[in-house]
């Protein structure tokens, strides 16, 4: 058994080191490898069932061994990386502007870190986390929030007058980054693949989000309620829930953007830039994904004018 685990670890480590996956984030690599194993099961099985790997074992056993080895291997790097993001990348001082009640930054950080460790044991939470986490790691939101504050148009109005956030642009950026981290928390309560509560577009049923909020707000005492609510609401469709927070709408859009983000995409001559293309496609699919179309229009303009 130990020998088989060792073999699975070595196989997974070599797969992870593959140059085709080099530019991807840890969770993107994980997703790619799982997809690869499933897609090439027929071709892989004869080799993996040979004496060099798992002699005489069935595919389900082999897949399960490789899956466990992969999750274990990814977690070795993922959790320290997440810890660094929480400790260094995000400034949690914004929580003081959310609620009158005093929150301890240290406690909030620890609680989020511990919660994510727990949450990311679930497959569907890991899958849901890929886009949001990429958006955090690549800081996809920062340049857009800067532009939003420069322009002071629809999104700025929604942030300051509708959601009534009384905080500066840096605090808003950190608010959204934290929302992105907590966005998949809704999956803590989903059963199985979460298909009963989640649509293909990733939008989650409103009642389920309310239920998740009730449960999680009792579990996560240190995290400001408004932050938790905004994070969970980023799983809702704006088309059906016009009242959802501006930060939730932004989080929802950038988590989706992170899902299809490619770090070093070659822009051919004659093609539009990646962000501009993505926002324009999202504008056309806004109903399907439940995005705020006016918000997308503004982000699209920002991307177009800046050549992003």
């Amino acid at each position, binding site marked *: 058994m130990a020998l088989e685990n060792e073999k699975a670890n070595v*196989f997974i480590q*070599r*797969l992870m080191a*593959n*140059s*085709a*996956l080099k530019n*991807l984030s840890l969770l993107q690599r994980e*997703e*790619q*490898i799982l*997809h*690869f194993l*499933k*897609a*090439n099961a027929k*071709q*892989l099985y004869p*080799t993996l069932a*040979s004496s*060099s790997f798992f002699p005489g074992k069935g595919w389900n056993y082999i897949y399960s061994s490789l899956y466990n080895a992969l999750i274990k291997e990814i977690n070795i790097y993922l959790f320290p990386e997440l810890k660094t993001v929480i400790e260094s990348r995000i400034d949690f001082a914004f929580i003081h502007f959310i609620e009158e009640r005093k929150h301890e930054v240290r406690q909030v950080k620890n609680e989020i870190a511990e919660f994510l460790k727990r949450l990311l044991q679930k497959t569907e939470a890991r899958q849901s986390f890929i886009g949001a986490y990429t958006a955090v790691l690549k800081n996809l939101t920062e340049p857009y929030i800067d532009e939003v504050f420069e322009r002071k148009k629809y999104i700025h109005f929604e942030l300051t007058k509708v959601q009534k956030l009384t905080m500066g642009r840096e605090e808003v950026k950190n608010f959204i980054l934290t929302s992105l981290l907590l966005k998949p928390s809704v999956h803590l309560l989903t059963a199985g693949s979460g298909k009963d509560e989640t649509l*293909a*577009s*990733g939008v989650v049923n409103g009642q389920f989000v309310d239920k998740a909020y009730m449960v999680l707000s009792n579990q996560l005492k240190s995290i400001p309620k408004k932050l938790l609510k905004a994070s969970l609401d980023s799983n809702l469709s704006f088309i059906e829930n016009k009242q959802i927070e501006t930060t939730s709408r932004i989080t929802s859009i950038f988590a989706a953007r992170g899902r*299809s983000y*490619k770090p070093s*995409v070659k*822009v*051919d*001559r*004659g*093609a*539009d*830039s*990646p962000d*501009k*293309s*993505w926002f*324009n*496609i999202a504008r*056309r*699919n806004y109903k*399907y994904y439940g995005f705020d179309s006016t918000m997308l229009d503004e982000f699209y303009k920002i991307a177009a004018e800046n050549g992003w």
Partner: protein
Amino acid sequence: MNKKITNFFEMLVVTAILLVLIQMFLEDFAVVSGWSMDIQKKLSISGFCFDLFFTIEFLTRLFYAFANKKTYYYLTRGRGWIDFFASVPLLMFNSGPTIFALFFSGTAILGIGGIFNVLKVIKTIRIARVLRFLRIIKIFGKIRYVDSVTAQRHIATVATISITVIVFSLFGASFITGSTGLPGIGESIFNHQITIAEALTKAETNEKDFINTIYQLNRLDDTLLIVKKKGTAIYSRYKNGYYREHFGPGDYTYYKNQDLEMFFDSRPVSIQNSVRNLIFFFIILFTVAAFLIFYSPQFAITITDPLHVMERGFREKDYNLEVKIPEKYADDDVFRVAKLYNEHYLPLKDRAENNEEKGLLNIGMQDIKDILPD
């Protein structure tokens, strides 16, 4: 191995095409600038070598085309006719005779009268040398904006039409002036020399008048070089060494009447011909450059680039970049299709991919060959 030889051969041809363009320019520039005959001879020899090389290349390509039953394709769509016009006639009627004259007769004698008109037409064969510019289209693919097969073919087609029309118009013009007696380049100079030759022939009957006429001509006209009577030179403008150093094949015209032989300087005509050749050279050079600089980007921006982006979008699952639609070309057919691609196809593709349970795969079996044992 065969591919390596073919690549080497293609590189050799491309290099030769670039070099022959420089040689073409220098050969005429040397005449206009009055470079020494030694340099001009070397340039003529190099011109012959290039013509020989391109003739062998043409015959080789023709042979392989014939062997593969693609002769018609090579000569037409393969632009073998350009290879032909830019090699065989030049070797036979231009550089070949020049080299023959250089090595076997010392001077290429150009007669006066009917033969002169025929040779003048043959000399226009040199114009065909500019067709070699069309061959550099072969290396256009390495240049920005012309990296698609369609762009290369279209630019080659329009450049070929333009240059061929210019070249064959010049051929036609030369043929008309050469065969119908219409005045062409150097006509007035040769007529003047004929007048002098006739005057000397008349004066020959009286020895005193004859000598006076020669000395007057020596002062008034600098084209009369040598007068021979019964094979003996009775007048020479320069010493023999000067002729060797400054005169080459085609730089003399020769007139003979019974015992009297006269040599005239025809270099002014050569210079006029070379100036004309240089003008043609630059016209063609700028025409090709204009297609490359102005037309190619235009073609790429409005045709091949949007098609390439759409083709990638159709072919690659994770390629979702939109086609950039310039406002001023928005009504073009291609961009109307691109608009449909942007507004309908890509959003549908995005939703379809989102519905797929499995995401897009960056890694394939070929990427893990080193992990799996044989």
